[in-house]
């Protein structure tokens, strides 16, 4: 399996351990990630907030670059994923726009590559099957609250996930690792995203509610698929201290991959004490 990898701006900074664990896990599973040549930022929530045109043209440049390789694009960041997907969809559906973009970027749209999120790729049935065979240290007894967040699964007209209110893909990955996914009601509730910088009070309230909901469900930790969700949960829970790990870190831990300790040391809420208590770390 080969993909055009669109890592996004946070993967080497605030989501460092997401990037490192993604590289390690994909290598172990034989999923080849070829970094999209000269990619640019998708515009995230800032482009669509202030500038409609940029919110489509910025990700369209990446789609145009990916055309040459005819590979599916894979993004670990849900914002990168959703905006690239929306830009690609507009090229498919709006002919006048497609012609305008083809003229602007000097490319011919062939529609061969699809845009996918990393979690989608790593939760396909054949990948899960292979994953099960590679698990060396099952995460037995570990209760995990799968946290999908908002734009990974929404809007369903664009993302087309299994269920926008009660998605299952991350839960299935946790099961394959031997962990126990808990049932809880907040798996697709927004963390407040970029409001962490402009209105921290809002994000503290939302992060606290997510922490309390996960605690009530008996979760030992969150599994996240988004750099913004993870940092908000890691730093903005007021009354709880539930560690927030990337789902790829948990995959790497169960597969016994080298580098796990380095990833786990990058968190604000140290997940190692809980993992040791469950006998999952020496």
């Amino acid at each position, binding site marked *: 399996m080969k993909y055009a990898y669109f890592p996004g701006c946070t993967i080497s900074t605030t989501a460092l351990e997401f990037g490192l664990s993604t590289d390690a896990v994909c290598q172990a599973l034989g999923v080849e990630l070829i970094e999209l040549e000269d990619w640019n930022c998708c515009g995230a929530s800032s482009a669509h*907030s202030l500038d409609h045109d940029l919110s489509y043209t910025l990700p369209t440049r990446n789609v145009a670059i990916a055309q040459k390789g005819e590979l599916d694009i894979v993004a670990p960041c849900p914002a990168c994923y959703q905006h690239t997907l929306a830009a690609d969809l507009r090229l498919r559906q709006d002919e006048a726009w497609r012609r305008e973009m083809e003229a602007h970027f000097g490319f011919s749209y062939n529609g061969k590559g699809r845009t996918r999120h990393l979690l989608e790729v790593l939760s396909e049935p054949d990948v899960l099957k292979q994953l099960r065979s590679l698990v060396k240290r099952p995460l037995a007894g570990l209760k995990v609250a799968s946290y999908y967040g908002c734009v990974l699964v929404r809007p369903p007209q664009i993302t087309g996930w299994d269920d926008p209110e009660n998605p299952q893909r991350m839960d299935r990955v946790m099961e394959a690792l031997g962990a126990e996914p808990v049932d809880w009601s907040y798996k697709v509730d927004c963390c407040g995203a970029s409001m962490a910088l402009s209105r921290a009070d809002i994000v503290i309230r939302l992060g606290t509610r997510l922490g309390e909901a996960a605690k009530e469900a008996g979760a030992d930790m969150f599994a996240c698929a988004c750099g913004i969700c993870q940092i908000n949960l890691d730093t903005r829970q007021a009354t709880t201290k539930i560690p927030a790990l990337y789902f790829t870190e948990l995959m790497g831990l169960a597969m016994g991959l080298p580098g796990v300790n380095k990833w786990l040391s990058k968190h604000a809420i140290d997940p190692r004490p809980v993992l040791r208590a469950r006998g999952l770390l020496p």
Partner: protein
Amino acid sequence: MATACEPDLTFGRLVQERCQEPILGCYYCQKCTAGCPVAFAMDYKPAQVLRLVQLGQKDLVLGSTAIWMCVGCEACGTRCPNRIRLAPMFDTLRYMALEGGYKPEPAVYWLHRSFLDSIRLWGRVHEMSMLAQYKTHNLLGKDFIADMKVALYLFVKGKILSLPERVHRLAEVRRLYKRQAAAEVES
């Protein structure tokens, strides 16, 4: 809170055409408000904003803080029985507010502005310089102490000190910022 004024009867239709969502079909079940994670921080709740748009209350809507609080999480649009996505409506209302000279919520506006400026500069977002620009406009935001704790954590863990990664063919990105200016000159 401001009071209602003479309705602008074209406003609702204008917003509907621009955001391409069937907002005039809303029958005010308020499911959007019920599920909105940031409704508590809005002066008008999502369903109220929609209703005010229908009623042509342009000044109340474009001058509201609500339009700057929406984070685009799409919970409302996913649940609406009339299949109205409110996030694109909120985007459109922000564009109209900026074009009409209404005062934006400064913290939200400057964060997005600084983010887009960072992309123009490097092609990718460089967090350190982006935050430096943002903080010159919004130094003492709410929960300044909490912000500093997060900054310290990122610093200690080596998550925010990297040099900017830049796009090689930067001119291609910068040209995107000039498209609209060019379109305005042509028309």
